């Protein structure tokens, strides 16, 4: 008979205990007790097997009782983290050191993810906090007006440019007398460059601001005087308040020591006294300026009007109140049929919500906040999924460690805590690198996006807060799944060496995550491709004119001086022609009313452009009068052409033919009647038609347009210069020399037509660049993740590869097999990503009147790119693994 082996019996008892899922932290004590009882029963004369059975019975129903008791015993309330933290940290650091390459990859991915999230958060914060620094901003509103079918961001004076100072101020007073309105201010900005004379020097400044409500103005927007005072600025007209930035530009960095208050400053023919220097307005306000001038009368046809209301008011009640009393504010406008009421905009809504004419700064686009937010989120998801995937894969190698910890009494929460801590630790270690990257990246981001989030960002506690929060949140999110997944593993499974280290079952978490990553890559990649295609389309689409090599110069000259200028410039060898007229590639401007003579219907949506025949020729605009364009001497001094869109409208409306239309009279501004002659509006004979041209951005559909073509315009604002293949800088220099020689406008202002057009798509171009960067980052991240994951999994599967090779599998078949695992995932990803990205892009493209067609090939291309990258990575890693001799792999563990 086989003798009883008490050690084996105890071992079996112990493993039953473990596999039952109990967590006895006092396994050793129990075992010692079991032996004591066993000895006792032996001494009392029982045979060993029976003695053991009795002892075991007496020890008790360990799994059940112990688990219940253990819960109370193992966790001294409140202290757990305190005394476990050092050992968590020690284990965490040891783990980080033990797999340096994989952890480095996780570290880099985490850094990239956190940097992206931080930049996106800072950007969103800056956009959403526009005008937040204005005191009591929620009670402040801007007034605009509805006129014809357009909304204006300002309100005209009753007599436009001729309105006197009292009348201009009268409407501010009238506004403040309305119930609910506490204060009202008005100003106007002048973005064009001007020359100021100060002491002996001359300086060019732009963005001057004129106000005749100076005290209220400084108070309303909360401007702080660094030197001088608001009282001095408001005390008498013809005073100037410089912003600190402008003071520094003019007087140098030590302007504070130069006694500049009280000094005279001349702009045009006006001399102002410097009354103060203001702290620079916050960059995220809806307007900015360099010098505020206190004038009795604003030299413009209207002003920007703002009011502060009491808490009981809102935009709608204010609009109603002001409309009811508008006769007191602007009697002549109130009587006009074209006036459609005031537009009241809450101050904080202007940046993201205004689409009015002549906006002070290009408004922000909420769509782009979504785009940036979503892209950052995608990168973040990639970061987190990368970490999750690699962490789970790496930690399967730690299953025995987890098993031992559990056997020694660690609870699920403690195991999860360990992994969470490790992720947070990695995040924390990433923090210095994140801040360094931000330091270099933020100024570049600002330059690209035209924002100012980098200014002093690294000194701002808010920014630190955001980055720390992002670090901890992302670190924890990244560690969450691995923590929960690993801590939930049953103990017995943790000791099973074959634990899911290979490809896993039909649907493993890893496959789900990889599919998610593929989906994100395809989505991001196709979005980038489409955004870039639309931008490219806009930049190359036939706009109806020749956009190349045209320089616009402001000449501000009468016809004879312009003729001289033209002659002089034409002498330049590289110049082919010089014309005059409205520069193309503009921001939207005001429309005109018009009607066909003999008809009563008045339209209100025509744009008017002016050109001479040379401009028409040099821009190569198609017209129905090519012979006159070629030889203007045969043409009348002035004629009017209508564009095809307008011609089509009139023909369809009144059943006319092309031939009927020519010679008919079109009346502009029929609401105006000349009091002396009794003539209604401004009648023009339609001389012919011209092809539709996109003067504005392609976001807008080409509308009806009238073009006044003159042989010799009486006054020329802008000259158009077409040049040969020379460099633009050369041309600019030569033209400038002619310009300066002729004593034209003291300020030389110029614009290249191509640059004008590019400026129209600044936003799109920014988004396109940004999405390209995001995509590159995402691809880089996914690539890193995929390399690390495949490399790690392959090391776990080296035995498998070795066996396959010994059994005769070719390298090709192994490559095919390993790559093949990813194909179904990619197909699923394509199915998910395509409709989602299609919807998103369609939504974005809806904002463009002229747009590309979205075809399935973009998504296939994106999937193809993803596939290519995946195959490259997987093959590379597998080939490396295959190089190891099978015998070596199989001989050792």
């Amino acid at each position, binding site marked *: 008979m086989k003798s009883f082996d008490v050690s084996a019996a105890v071992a079996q008892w112990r493993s039953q205990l473990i596999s039952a899922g109990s967590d006895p*932290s*006092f396994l050793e004590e129990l075992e010692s*007790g079991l032996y004591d*009882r066993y000895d006792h029963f032996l001494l009392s004369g029982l045979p060993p097997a029976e003695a053991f059975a009795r002892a075991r019975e*007496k020890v*008790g*129903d360990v799994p059940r009782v*112990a688990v219940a008791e*253990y819960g109370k*015993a193992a966790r001294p309330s409140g202290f757990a983290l305190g005394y476990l933290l050092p050992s968590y940290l020690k284990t965490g650091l040891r783990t980080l050191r033990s797999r340096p390459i994989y952890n480095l990859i996780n570290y880099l991915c985490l850094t990239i993810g956190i940097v992206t999230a931080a930049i996106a958060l800072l950007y969103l914060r800056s956009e959403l906090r526009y005008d937040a620094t204005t005191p009591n901003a929620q009670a402040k509103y801007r007034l605009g007006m509805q006129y014809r079918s357009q909304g204006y961001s300002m309100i005209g004076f009753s007599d436009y440019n001729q309105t006197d100072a009292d009348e201009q101020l009268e409407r501010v007073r009238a506004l403040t007398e309305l119930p609910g309105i506490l204060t009202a201010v008005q100003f106007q900005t002048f973005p064009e460059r001007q020359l100021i004379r100060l002491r002996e020097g001359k300086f060019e400044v732009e963005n001057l601001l004129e106000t005749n409500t100076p005290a209220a103005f400084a108070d309303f927007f909360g401007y702080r005087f660094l030197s001088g005072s608001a009282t001095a600025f408001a005390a008498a007209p013809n005073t100037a308040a410089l912003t600190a930035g402008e003071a520094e530009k003019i007087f140098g960095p030590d302007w504070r020591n130069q006694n500049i208050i009280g000094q005279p400053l001349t702009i045009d023919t006006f001399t102002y006294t410097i009354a103060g220097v203001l702290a620079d307005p916050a960059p995220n306000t809806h307007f900015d300026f360099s010098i505020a001038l206190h004038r009795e009368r604003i030299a413009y046809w209207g002003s920007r009007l703002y009011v502060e209301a009491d808490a009981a008011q809102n935009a709608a009640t204010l609009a109603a109140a002001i409309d009811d009393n508008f006769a007191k504010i602007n009697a002549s406008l109130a009587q006009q049929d074209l006036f459609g009421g005031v537009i009241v905009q809450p101050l904080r809504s202007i940046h993201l919500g205004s689409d009015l004419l002549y906006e002070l700064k290009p408004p922000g686009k909420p769509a782009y906040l979504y785009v940036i937010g979503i892209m950052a989120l995608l990168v973040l998801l990639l970061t987190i999924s990368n970490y999750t995937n690699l962490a789970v894969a790496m930690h399967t190698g730690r299953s025995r460690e987890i098993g031992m910890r559990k056997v020694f009494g660690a609870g699920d929460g403690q195991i999860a805590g360990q992994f969470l801590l490790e992720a947070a630790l990695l995040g924390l270690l990433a923090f210095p690198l994140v801040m360094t990257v931000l330091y270099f990246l933020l100024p570049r981001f600002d330059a690209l996006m035209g924002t100012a989030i980098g200014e002093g960002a690294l000194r701002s506690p808010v920014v630190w807060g955001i980055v720390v929060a992002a670090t901890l949140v992302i670190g924890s999110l990244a560690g969450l799944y691995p923590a929960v997944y690993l801590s939930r593993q049953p103990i017995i499974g943790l000791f099973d060496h074959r634990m899911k280290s290979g490809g896993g079952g039909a649907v493993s978490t890893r496959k789900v995550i990889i599919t998610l990553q593929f989906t994100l890559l395809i989505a991001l990649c196709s979005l980038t491709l489409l955004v870039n295609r639309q931008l490219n389309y806009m930049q190359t689409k036939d706009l109806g004119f020749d956009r190349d090599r045209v320089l616009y110069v402001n000449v501000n000259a009468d016809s004879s001086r312009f003729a001289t200028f033209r002659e002089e410039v034409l002498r330049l060898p590289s110049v082919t022609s010089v014309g005059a007229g409205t520069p193309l590639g503009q921001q939207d401007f005001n429309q005109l009313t018009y009607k066909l003579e003999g008809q009563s219907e008045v339209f209100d949506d025509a744009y008017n452009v002016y050109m001479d025949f040379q401009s028409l020729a040099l821009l190569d605009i198609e017209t129905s009068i090519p012979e006159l364009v070629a030889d203007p001497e045969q043409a009348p001094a002035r004629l009017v052409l209508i564009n095809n869109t307008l011609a089509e409208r009139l023909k369809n409306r009144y059943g006319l033919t092309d031939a009927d239309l020519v010679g008919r009279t079109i009346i502009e501004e029929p609401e105006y009647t000349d009091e002396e002659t009794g003539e209604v509006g401004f009648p023009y004979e339609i001389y012919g038609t011209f092809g539709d041209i996109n003067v504005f951005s392609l976001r807008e559909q080409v509308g009806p347009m009238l073009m006044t073509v003159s042989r010799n315009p009486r006054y020329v604002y802008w000259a158009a210069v077409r040049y040969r293949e020379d460099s633009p800088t050369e041309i600019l220099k030569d033209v400038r020399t002619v310009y300066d020689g002729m004593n034209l406008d003291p300020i030389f202002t110029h614009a290249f037509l191509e640059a004008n057009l590019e400026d129209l798509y600044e936003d799109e171009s920014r988004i396109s660049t940004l999405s390209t960067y995001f995509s590159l980052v995402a691809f880089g991240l996914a690539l890193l993740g995929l390399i690390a994951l495949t490399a790690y999994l392959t090391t776990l599967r080296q035995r498998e590869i070795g066996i396959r090779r010994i059994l005769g599998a070719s390298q090709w078949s192994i490559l095919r097999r390993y790559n093949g695992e990813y194909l179904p995932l990619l197909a699923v990803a394509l199915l998910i990503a395509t409709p989602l990205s299609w919807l998103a892009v369609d939504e974005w493209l809806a904002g463009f009147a002229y747009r590309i067609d979205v075809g399935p090939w973009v998504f296939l291309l994106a999937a193809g790119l993803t596939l290519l990258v995946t195959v490259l990575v997987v093959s590379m890693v597998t080939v490396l693994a295959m190089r190891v001799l099978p015998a070596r792999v199989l001989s050792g563990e």
Partner: protein
Amino acid sequence: MTTKTLVAASTKPLVLSILSHGKNYGYRIIQEVERLSAGELAWTDAMLYPVLKRMENEELIASHWVKTESGRKRKYYEITATGKERLAEDRRQWLNVSRMFSRLWDAEGNPLSIAD
């Protein structure tokens, strides 16, 4: 059989009292309890060790492993100063209860007159 509640309430004072006579190990403690209760209280190891662990956490007792002659390990427990303080307090309370019962019942459990 003693009720669960009473077992739960009396375990710690009993362990402390037994350990106040000198250090001891798990199995012997269980045996002492059985002997003193004349078999009325039968503790299992699975019930005792968690209590010992908890008492250790509360610093009422301390423990250390000792290697026995047979080569096996055995954990010995001893009462700490805090444990002694706790025992003194427990003793006061239990004696109080005990005195009350002895005034209420005779040795056979028959009610006594409570009028003085």
